[in-house]
């Protein structure tokens, strides 16, 4: 007795199964790719970064453009110890070297220490004011000097606080990881980044163009400018025109407005300025 042959089932062949699978994959891919359904274009808005602590300056000090790594809490704390700064203000009248002993032996509030010398000085001033005006003027001068010193001190405090916040050391003494905010070849005394960035801001400020003057936003032109060592514009030419008369004319005006730099570079300057509308807001 022989076993009956296994009934042949009507199964699809492997190739057809693979074909169906492939077709299904394609269908899924097409559905999810969004080709069949119109996609509304997403308008990308530009993101703007404004660095308020690293402003471009004309004469940057020696340092690093990134201001060095910021994380250290110590440099931030140190300037705080310099908070006794009010004392030097009070001291010049009595002891210029009084910074060595602990700054505020008299009081824990440095601000309060200042009024006291003023009071002491005001005492003699009162009788002096009556007899002669000369005495009063001297008094005024002293008061003005003190106020001036106080202002300078407050300014120094603020600078050190800003530097502490940004992780920069404004002392100009420390280098390496704690380098001050400035430029490697900087020789000036301003805290900030390079001359090129300053020039960029300078050109931007002098460039006037209304969005209603141009029909397109993809305009761009390049102007080659040359300045003499004393900062006078010696030559400019369009390396690449935008093709829009209003746009190009606005650039000519911007260049003419900047025909004298407010500083003497000390050497001839030549560079290309690329003007475009990438950051023009609608």
């Amino acid at each position: 007795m022989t076993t009956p042959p296994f009934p042949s089932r009507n199964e699809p062949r492997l190739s057809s199964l693979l074909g169906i699978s492939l077709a299904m994959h394609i269908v899924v891919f097409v559905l999810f790719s969004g080709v069949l359904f119109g996609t509304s274009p997403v308008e990308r808005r530009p993101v703007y970064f404004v660095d308020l602590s690293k402003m471009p300056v004309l004469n940057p000090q020696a340092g690093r453009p990134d201001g060095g790594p910021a994380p250290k809490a110590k440099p931030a704390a140190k300037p705080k110890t310099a908070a006794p700064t009010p004392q030097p203000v009070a001291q010049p009248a009595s002891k210029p070297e009084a910074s060595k002993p602990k700054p505020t032996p008299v009081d824990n509030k440095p601000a309060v220490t200042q009024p006291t010398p003023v009071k002491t000085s005001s005492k003699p001033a009162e009788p002096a004011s009556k007899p002669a005006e000369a005495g009063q003027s001297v008094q005024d001068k002293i008061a003005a000097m003190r106020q001036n010193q106080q202002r300078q001190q407050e300014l120094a405090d603020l600078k050190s606080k800003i530097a502490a916040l940004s992780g920069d050391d404004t002392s100009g003494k420390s280098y390496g990881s704690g380098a001050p905010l400035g430029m490697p070849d900087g020789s000036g005394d301003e805290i900030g980044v390079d001359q090129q960035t300053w020039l960029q801001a300078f050109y931007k400020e002098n460039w006037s163009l209304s969005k209603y003057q141009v029909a397109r936003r993809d305009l761009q032109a390049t102007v080659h400018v040359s300045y003499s060592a004393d900062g006078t514009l010696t030559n400019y030419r369009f390396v690449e025109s935008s093709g829009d008369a209003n746009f190009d004319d606005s650039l000519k005006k911007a260049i003419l407005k900047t025909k004298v730099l407010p500083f003497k570079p000390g050497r001839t300057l030549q560079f290309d300025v690329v003007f475009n509308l990438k950051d023009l807001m609608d």
Partner: protein
Amino acid sequence: MRRFATLLFALLCLPATSVMAQIEVRAPGQQTIAVANTELLPLSGFPSPAIARELHEVMSYDLDMSGLFRQLDPASFLGDAKRLGLTSTQVDFNQWSLLGSEILIKGGYRMQGDRLLVEFRLFDVIHRQLLTGRSYSGYPGDVRTMAHKFADVILKSVTGKEGPFSSRIAYIDNRTGHKELYLMDTDGANSLRLTDHRSIVLNPDFSPNGREVIFTSYRPGNPDLYRKYLGTGQEARLSFKKGLNISARFKPDGREIALTQSESGNPELVLLGTDGSQRRRLTNHWGIDVDPSWSPAGDKLAFVSDRQGNPHIFVLDLLSGQTKRISNNGKYNATPAWSPDGDRIAFTRLEGNVFDIYTIRPDGTDERRLTFGPGNKEHPRWSPDGRFLVFSSDQDGGKGIYIMRADGTGMQRISATGGQSQHPAWSRQR
């Protein structure tokens, strides 16, 4: 050895190649043009402060409305503002440069009998040259027109495209107790009633040459289409088919008129000759087809239809006969107006029981909402230069006519209070 020599040569060449720094400026720092708008001085004879003031005020309004300029405070002007200088050699540009002015408006006026002569000059302070000038002669009552005309010239000089300030706006107002057709300047001045139908007048539109206005009036009981000649005041009834004869628009070449008629019972778009003769039916659909607006080339029409359920904006290609829906958002879109440049279509959308104005490209992309806030903003129409939109709104209570820039900024009411104003239309020429 040869390679080494080449490398050496290249290295020697390096120092000779100066390294050029490149600075990229990605946007202008000043996005308005500083303008010194001086008060005009008497050319001869007695000064007339009222004339000088009105010229100055109208000019100042137009410059502000353009959005192009930043007007310097006249209090900061130095001695040159008090000197009549009509040529570039007579102007002390140093003074204006010091104030940061980029362009300067100067001029003078003179009365000759009952005639008024006004000289306007526009100077480029940076290049120290005269940009343009005009001499206008008219009556003292034309003072505002003269200032508007020179404002148009200033815009032409600065942007290459003439301004729209000397054109006019037609609108419907009910201050007499009936909805009548009025005409006014672009700043709302010199309002003038044109019709006395003592009925309901609607939907005005200017002919391309600005000499005629067509509108719908219910005077005969049926909403019929009328034409009015502005010069003579003559009126003629152009279309008086049974049912609607509404929302008529001149073709940009002025040779035909598209409007909605409902003679067959269903509102359809129809083309008429300017003499009122029936040319051809443009749409044939069970849905309602209204509010046609011509493309600048006159080869397409934007219109409103509810053929797909809700009222939406469609574009009909007159050559191929193809119709394409372009508004895909909202449930109630109406009153399309094709811009003179042809790149955008303004329309209104009802959302939350409030109409607001939107624009969209003719292909249905890049939809932008222009108006926000309370109140309806309806019936937008473009200025002839495409810089502005005029529309009616009830945002301040009663309906009034407003204008704004094409980007939605600078919205201002221009029609006077005291009536319900709506359905504005901006003339292409004065």
